[in-house]
């Protein structure tokens, strides 16, 4: 049995037209691609289309991918762009919601440290405050904290200078602090 291929091997093979290798890249990144698209587009149908189109466009653009560069931010930039186009085309603002209580993990297990950090009221208030942020700030916060991207990855995904992401993030956190404190 051969060793598992690392990402640069997969990218190299995909660039040579190996669709199986690209399928493995899709498998590895489809979760975060969908989540990125979801927080931008605001609904599952558009997020799915954006992620799918993003993967197809990334395949077609692999020839322009800089060898040795990280694949994820490059891919997410394409996916985020697709998601923003869909959001603009619908004219609807993305609005995130909490899971219904019945869908939360149940049983006797103790809540995670993160979950116990927030009371139900605080969760609701904080999410309302996030949803009320200006779109550019809301997107940065959602990608940074709900998707889990680094500031550098957020900057890449949104095609923004890292300094702009930092300043938007700081302004947004300042506004959110008022709801949280």
């Amino acid at each position, binding site marked *: 049995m051969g060793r598992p291929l690392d990402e640069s091997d997969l990218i190299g093979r995909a660039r040579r037209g190996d669709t199986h290798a690209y399928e493995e890249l899709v498998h590895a990144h*489809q979760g975060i*691609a969908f989540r990125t698209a979801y927080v931008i587009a605001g609904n599952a149908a558009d997020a799915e289309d954006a992620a799918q189109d993003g*993967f197809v466009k990334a*395949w077609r653009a692999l020839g322009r991918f800089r060898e040795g560069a990280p694949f994820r931010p490059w891919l997410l930039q394409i996916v985020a762009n697709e998601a923003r186009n869909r959001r603009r085309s*619908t*004219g609807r603002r993305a609005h995130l919601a*909490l899971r219904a209580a019945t869908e939360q993990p149940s049983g006797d297990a103790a809540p995670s440290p993160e979950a116990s950090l*927030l009371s139900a009221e605080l969760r609701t208030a904080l999410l309302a405050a*996030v949803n009320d942020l200006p779109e550019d700030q809301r997107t940065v916060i959602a990608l940074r904290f709900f998707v889990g991207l680094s500031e550098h990855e957020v900057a890449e995904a949104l095609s923004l200078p890292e300094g702009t992401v930092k300043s938007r993030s700081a302004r947004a956190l300042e506004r959110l602090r008022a709801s949280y404190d």
Partner: protein
Amino acid sequence: MTELERALVALGRELDIPAGPDLRSRVRERIERKPRRRRAVVLAVALLTALGIALAVPPARSAILRFFHIGSVTIERVETLPHAQERSLVAGLGPPLSLREAEKIAGVALVLNAPRPRRFYAQPGLIATLLHYRGTSVLLAELQGDQMGLTKKFAAPGTTVEPAPIGSFGLWLEGGKHVLMWSAASGEIRQMERRLAGNVLIWAEGNRTYRLEGGLNMGQMVELGRQITR
């Protein structure tokens, strides 16, 4: 990380974000279509060259230009137009819908960087709406990929066809009336009315084909088209 930032991370885990679907098979199916697309592009470039020659040499027009493809649209020159009637721009497109309903039926998200009308029309693979521009109604139709086809038949020399400076490439049809028909990718003619069409701008951009129809000249229509996809 501050307490607020930790709270945001915790909030992210409580959000109603569905698990994404497994995209592997659909992505694979689409990327494996690429060779055919590449051939189609080569063919389109060859046809565009032929069209350029045809347009540059008027006597050659009728001899060379028999048909042309742009994305999901086929334009075909015929000796005699099929029977068709003057009908409204939205004839055969179904009842007016909300944008959400139309996008659901079409499976296509509308691209329109302009004030949004309230009524939309849809068929699988196609979304359309009526715009009002420079005092006249213009039908905007957008088709995604090659899931559906429009066929336009025109009878030379009543209709002129020329390249239009928009998108990856575009065509402008003006003059004599031509007949518009809608067909599914399978080749089956859908149960839609044939109708006579007026001035039309068709262009391809990315994986989408755009079509504008109405009583504008080419310059005005290109201006509107560029605004839509800006």
